[in-house]
């Protein structure tokens, strides 16, 4: 049963720029499975090496579950300064 979620990420290249929120359907159960699914399908252009997930505005662990209606932000810390 696919879950309807939203995936938020920074678009660093391409036509769209800045923080994006895309509708996404997934069969992933955890944040880790979601990331692997997105990396493999390349439907969403992740342009940094993702190291952290935020689920519904709370920092999460990769084993945390993804539920229908969740907002998942995929990020890695920025190094610039």
């Amino acid at each position: 049963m696919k879950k309807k979620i939203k995936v938020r990420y920074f678009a660093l290249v391409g036509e769209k720029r800045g923080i994006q929120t895309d509708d996404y359907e997934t069969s992933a159960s955890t944040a880790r499975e979601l990331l692997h699914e997105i990396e493999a399908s390349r439907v969403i252009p992740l342009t940094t090496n993702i190291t952290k997930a935020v689920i519904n505005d709370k920092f999460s662990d990769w084993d945390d579950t993804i539920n229908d209606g969740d907002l998942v932000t995929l990020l890695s810390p920025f190094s610039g300064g």
Partner: protein
Amino acid sequence: MQTPPPGDPGRYARQTASGLISPEGQRKLAGSSILLVGCGALGGPLAGLLVRAGVGGLVIADRDVVELHNLQSHQLYDENDVRERLPKAEAAARRLRAINSSVRVEALVADVTAGRIEGLAARADLILDGTDNFETRYLLNDAAVKLGKPWIYGGLLGTGGMTLTVLPGRGPCLRCLFPEPPAPGSQPTCDTRGVLNTAAAWVTAVQATEAIKLLSGRESEAGGFRILDVWTGTAQSPVAERKGDCPCCGRRDFEFLDARRGSSATRLCGRGAVQIMPERPVRTDLVLLKERLAPLGKVTHNGLLLEFTAGERRLVVFPDGRVLVMGTKDIAEARSLAAKYIGS
């Protein structure tokens, strides 16, 4: 019209009139000491804002020299600084003393290393992040947590920024959120992916506001993690919690401060080169790195190693993450180049 003397409290009248900084708060600000590590796109505006706000003292540590391409995002510097090839810390100190002569500004033209950071941090009430690499940030985090000093992380990339106010003992530290620094070469940098100066302006506004809260007696209102995007004009504050088993603030294992973690740099005798070894061999994607560097200059990849020419210096990157910076014997300069182009 006569200029009021620098110590004139009327100078800060608009701040105190806001009600957010009381006259007592202003006095606390005037008695505060800040350590600013890095004075580039973040550090410059940070220093400017806080010096104008009337902090007591500021030590600026930066290993770089002002270059022309800095002027796009580094608010404190100008073309004269480029012509004179001034170190950033020195150029910043001159500008800041002219802005507010009642602030004690000290310039330290040096790499902030494990050996130096504790002594510097011990003298400060607050540590501000103006760095351009992860290694130094994990070092700052160790030092701040060990000494119980607050520090404010700031990071930039593209149109985006992040900040985290670390209050040791009260909230999460950097390693609670990001336990491990990204491997060198694994992340894009402002040099390879670009940065808008407007993103720097927003991130530093947030960092400086947090600093003012902490230094003027409103500590209870400081804290938190923010993700900012200046292109969409949006901000988020995901909830970040302390982790009881955090290696830094939980187990108090200060492995970066003790130099058990982190890369090592050595001058190669007679070769005019510096070698930077990652803390352990890390599989580096040279194909991706070549793609990122190609718009910036001459880069070749022969399947065994990657070579990139940056002005008069040449960077050689190996698949295990080792970097040779040819054409310099200056370790700080070599580390700076590696941070800009490869990411560290």
